[in-house]
């Protein structure tokens, strides 16, 4: 009796198992919603329905240093856009707690529950590699604003980024530094445990090879390290013209400080991660002479940059950084894409994001292509007297 009942259970379990083990073909059902289609186009476009825009940023835990700026930058952009006529946006921001799980869950919520037209974020490339495929298979355009790692746009045609890839930033800053200070021999230091910095390292080595710069010291460290003296001693003994650094802000600050304390006064060249006023604030004098390649510069005279800096500082009581500036730009790019056909459906936003050409933004003229890659002119800056200055 008992045995029979249990064998029934076994059969049921087996059946369930078989069904779960099967792969179901997921059909992307992209129903177009007419309410999201408006009249007119461009500046005259008017859509009755509020357009929902999702955003996933790391507002807490490890990457909160970036996520907070991004949220503020994006919110500022949509406040400004909503003040104009025609299209109004509702911004739904989710915190991924700098964790992959929460990031995937946040994407799912925005896609399935909130049914947003487009998603901005996530903050880290690490999460983007696992969330963007979901956006792709659901047919929701996703626009990264700080996902600089190699290979992100290749995930699919719904994936875009308005964040200068690291190779772009470095491809500009290394030659600029070479020209400005004449580097021939360099030391390369990188965080080998973090994927962003590891990816940047690969780019650096390529660019240095292209530029015929000799790498005489090539050392690495781990994200949480606090003591770099052993690596720095090697740098010091090698007599280099510059140090090329690929590190997250957490390690950059102590590393640069220790280098300066030990008397290494060679210029230090870095990529996107350097582009933060926090860095200057924390390092004070030690930050002098850092050369930074980035997507945005406080010193740049691009369209609206001065207004952006003023409005941001007034709203949030601190100066914006590159993360804020890129997120801010993303707001305008989305508005541009929606207004192009005056259609806020996912397909339309996707099609039009891929056709943004030479959009005049605070990052300068910016273009997105169909593959989702961004094209813009990087800014190379040097820190002088505690200020980012464009390196000419």
């Amino acid at each position: 009796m008992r045995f029979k009942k249990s064998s029934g259970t076994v059969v049921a379990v087996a059946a369930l198992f078989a069904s779960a083990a099967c792969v179901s073909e997921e059909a992307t059902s992209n129903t177009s919603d007419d309410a999201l289609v408006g009249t007119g186009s461009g500046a005259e476009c008017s859509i009755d329905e509020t357009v929902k825009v999702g955003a996933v940023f790391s507002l807490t835990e490890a990457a909160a240093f970036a996520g907070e700026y991004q949220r503020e930058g994006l919110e500022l952009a949509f406040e400004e856009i909503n003040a104009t006529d025609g299209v109004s946006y509702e911004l739904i921001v989710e915190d991924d707690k700098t964790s992959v799980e929460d990031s995937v869950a946040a994407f799912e919520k925005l896609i399935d529950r909130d049914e947003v037209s487009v998603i901005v974020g996530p903050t880290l490339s690490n999460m983007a590699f696992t969330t963007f495929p979901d956006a792709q298979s659901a047919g929701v355009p996703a626009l990264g604003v700080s996902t600089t790692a190699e290979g992100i746009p290749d995930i699919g045609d719904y994936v875009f980024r308005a964040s200068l890839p690291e190779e772009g930033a470095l491809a500009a800053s290394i030659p600029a530094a070479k020209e400005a200070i004449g580097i021939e021999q360099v030391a390369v230091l990188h965080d080998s445990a973090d994927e962003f910095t590891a990816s940047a390292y690969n780019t650096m080595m390529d660019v240095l090879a292209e530029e015929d710069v000799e790498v005489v010291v090539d050392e690495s460290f781990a994200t949480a390290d606090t003591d770099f003296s052993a690596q720095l001693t090697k740098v010091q003994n090698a007599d280099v013209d510059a140090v090329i650094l690929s590190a997250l802000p957490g390690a950059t600050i102590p590393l640069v400080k220790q280098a300066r304390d030990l008397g290494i006064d060679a210029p230090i060249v870095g990529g996107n991660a350097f582009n933060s006023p926090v860095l200057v604030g924390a390092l004070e004098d030690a930050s002098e002479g850092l050369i930074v390649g980035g997507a945005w510069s406080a010193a740049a005279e691009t369209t609206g940059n001065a207004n952006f800096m003023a409005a941001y500082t007034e709203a949030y009581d601190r100066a914006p950084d590159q993360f804020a500036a890129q997120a801010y730009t993303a707001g305008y790019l989305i508005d541009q894409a929606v207004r192009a056909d005056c259609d806020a459906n996912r397909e339309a936003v996707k099609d039009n994001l891929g056709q943004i050409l030479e959009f005049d933004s605070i990052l300068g003229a910016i273009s997105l292509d169909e593959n989702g890659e961004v094209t813009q002119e990087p800014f190379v800056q040097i820190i002088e007297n505690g200020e980012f200055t464009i390196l000419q």
Partner: protein
Amino acid sequence: MLAGYDTLITTIALGAILAYSFHVVLMAGQLSLGQAGFASLAAYVSTLVVPAEPLFGSLSPVLVGLPVGALVGAGAAFVVGLPVLRLRGVFLAIATIAFGEMVRVAMTNAEWTNGALGVRVDKWVTFDFAWIIVAVLAYLFWRLGPSRVGRAFAAVREDELAAGSMGVNVVRTRMTSFVASGAIAGVYGVLFAYFFGRITPAAFDFSLMMDGLVTAVLGGYLVFFGPVLGSGFLTVVPEIQSALGLDAGWVHPLVTSLLLLAVILFLPGGLSSLLARRRPAPRRVDPDGTDLAGLPPLPEPGTAVAELRALGKSYGAVQAVREIDLEIRSGEILGVIGPNGAGKTTLVNMISGLEPPTSGEGEVLGVALGSNGGAHRFAQAGVSRTFQHSKLFDRLTVLDNVLVGTHVVSRPTYLRRLLWLPSARRDERRARALAWAQLDRVGLAERAHLRPGALSYGDQRRLEIARALAAHPTLLILDEPAAGMNHVEAAELAALIKALADDGITVLLIEHNVRMVLDTCTRLVVMNFGEVIAAGRPREVAADPKVVEAYLGATETGESEYV
């Protein structure tokens, strides 16, 4: 299923699977924290073998990854376990943490793993797939609880020495739990890889390990569904919190920490102890003829049970036992008396296989003293014992304590229980019948559902005897069983010991209650300073002037008992 909640639901399943890999070691009392390393190895290896296309057109390719991941995890656990399982407690914890970190660094530096950039794979794992794995694990653990190996896990967790003395192979049990943990962690690693579609070495770090441990502890490791409960709870709390509008980044860690603190302080069994219903008093199982008939016969009276020749034991410069020659014959009640520090407990520890001798030789029921294998081999040969300071399994009921005693006279039931084979039910029923018979014998049948802590001191000693008897011993060693008993209880105990001897059990009795020893024993050995100073018929030995002197000297030194 629930649109928009797939990830949440799958995250609960993944958290539960990770927690099960901690559950299985905690069940056996091992604080092993290398699961992140096993998961990492398994996840990376699985990316090498899992095909890119569905199997036979429609089967999930992860079906290939799961067994590979489990094997990699189990294999790694076995290899790591060989050296580190000699360690215990926090030393084991730290050694396994070190292993996990070594894996992480190795994966970061290896070429085939693509270093910190990680590996991308297709997302094959769906929420129903993950939950099926959880269901399978829950089933495995549900069936494990009341099986022979499940009781062995619990016994090793509660007291390794007592478990070994009851015939549980402690080393193998610890290794089993360690390897099972590795296998489950391996499955977790594979599911993680193919759910998120991406792995990096940093995904399997110290904090992942902490998450798994916290989930397992919060859910509770004494009940089979603890991990599911813990994972569900930890996943739902932040959802509730954000529904309440508490979005500040510090609220979530604060709430989780407070919860964890509250659970560990006030609910040591975890959240599942709230849901585990109060068990009714266990149903009594009376032995029928076949239960006892299956037990091997005891040796004929007069057969040699143990022979010791010039046996000695020293701890560094301290010679605890020296030059003992002793023969124990079947059917006798051999009393060993002597002042504190005379070496009595050291002697029985050697006879029961807990400590190897440092000189001389001996054989107990065919097992040579000091041979490899430890106490369980002596128990399997028919030696069973109680301890001077009771070593009961505190978190098991009285009945379950005695059931552990049946370990050496019952067959493994776990695999058959998984298949619901009737023979497993018969074997479990027989074990329970044997246990009840012993509870009856010592008069504890009414207290079968209590925990040892709820028993009086005298009852605890009786319980230990019942547990030892459940092993159907040839040689029963009682180390001061009457200590703390009043003389009514002691008299009952003396009667019980005599009855046991009448049944053919050989008894070795260490006791301070001289009157009881004189009344019950058939032969008496007196020890002092590690040596036998007198041996023979109880009354004659008691009259020996050397014995009187040793005893008078001893009573002045006080009551505390250390060997």
